[in-house]
């Protein structure tokens, strides 16, 4: 999941994913949509493939890229993680306040 998050941190890579989410495209075709160099696009594609966000299919000398639907399951797992960690934070924050309240009550009792 870290690899996917890292891969998606780069705006160009997010754009590339958008381009290949419905259509298979070659690196050359993808590069036409960007101002950056073709080798730079190839590098981005490698990062996306390593993160399992795009699938690569070879046909002769051509390589076609397409967003991987399977990657979505991993992304959903991330959403799961987002809510899990958020709720964990909720528990910690609520309990911190409760603890502070108890301390105040105890201090008052001691002072009285």
């Amino acid at each position, binding site marked *: 999941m870290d690899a*996917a998050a890292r891969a998606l941190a780069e705006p160009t890579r997010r754009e590339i994913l958008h381009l290949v989410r419905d259509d298979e495209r070659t690196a050359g075709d993808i590069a036409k949509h960007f101002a950056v160099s073709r080798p730079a696009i190839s590098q981005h594609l490698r990062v996306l493939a390593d993160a399992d966000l795009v699938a690569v299919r070879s046909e002769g000398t051509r390589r076609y890229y397409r*967003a991987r639907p399977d990657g979505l399951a991993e992304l959903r797992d991330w959403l799961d993680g*987002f*809510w899990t*960690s*958020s*709720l*964990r934070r909720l528990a910690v*924050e609520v309990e911190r306040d409760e603890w502070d309240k108890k301390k105040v009550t105890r201090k008052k009792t001691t002072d009285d």
Partner: protein
Amino acid sequence: MTDQDTTDSVVITERVAASPEAVFDFLVDPDKLVRWLGSSVDIEPEPGGKFLVSIGDNVATGSYVRVDPPKQVVFTWGWEDSADVPPGSSTVTISLTPDDDHTIVELRHAGLPRGGDDEHHKGWTFILPRLAAVVDGRDPGPELPHAD
């Protein structure tokens, strides 16, 4: 649940050592909400009122459907800049149930695009901003809260 076949949901539970009333404050008081969700919030916790949370450089928005202290809060949720999953397209239900001197918090995020088949692209645009937020913005961390 007529859309069960085309949508997905995430259900998370957490047990908190506090009363439902204390937990409920953390759902509807913006100063408390922001301590556990996102990096800034702008909310009007009443039916029809707005729900807006910044997560990294993405903004999740929707509106409140139900605010029932100290039991339940329901609001819709989507991404501000997403054409496929606009604000309000999924629903988050947070339910509080007393359990001795604790509270069970159940969060259900329903109506999420299901992965796979020709529907998969919806999922991409829905979830990509979240992932970007992890790196671009404030990562809530895998388990631990922020040490402020």
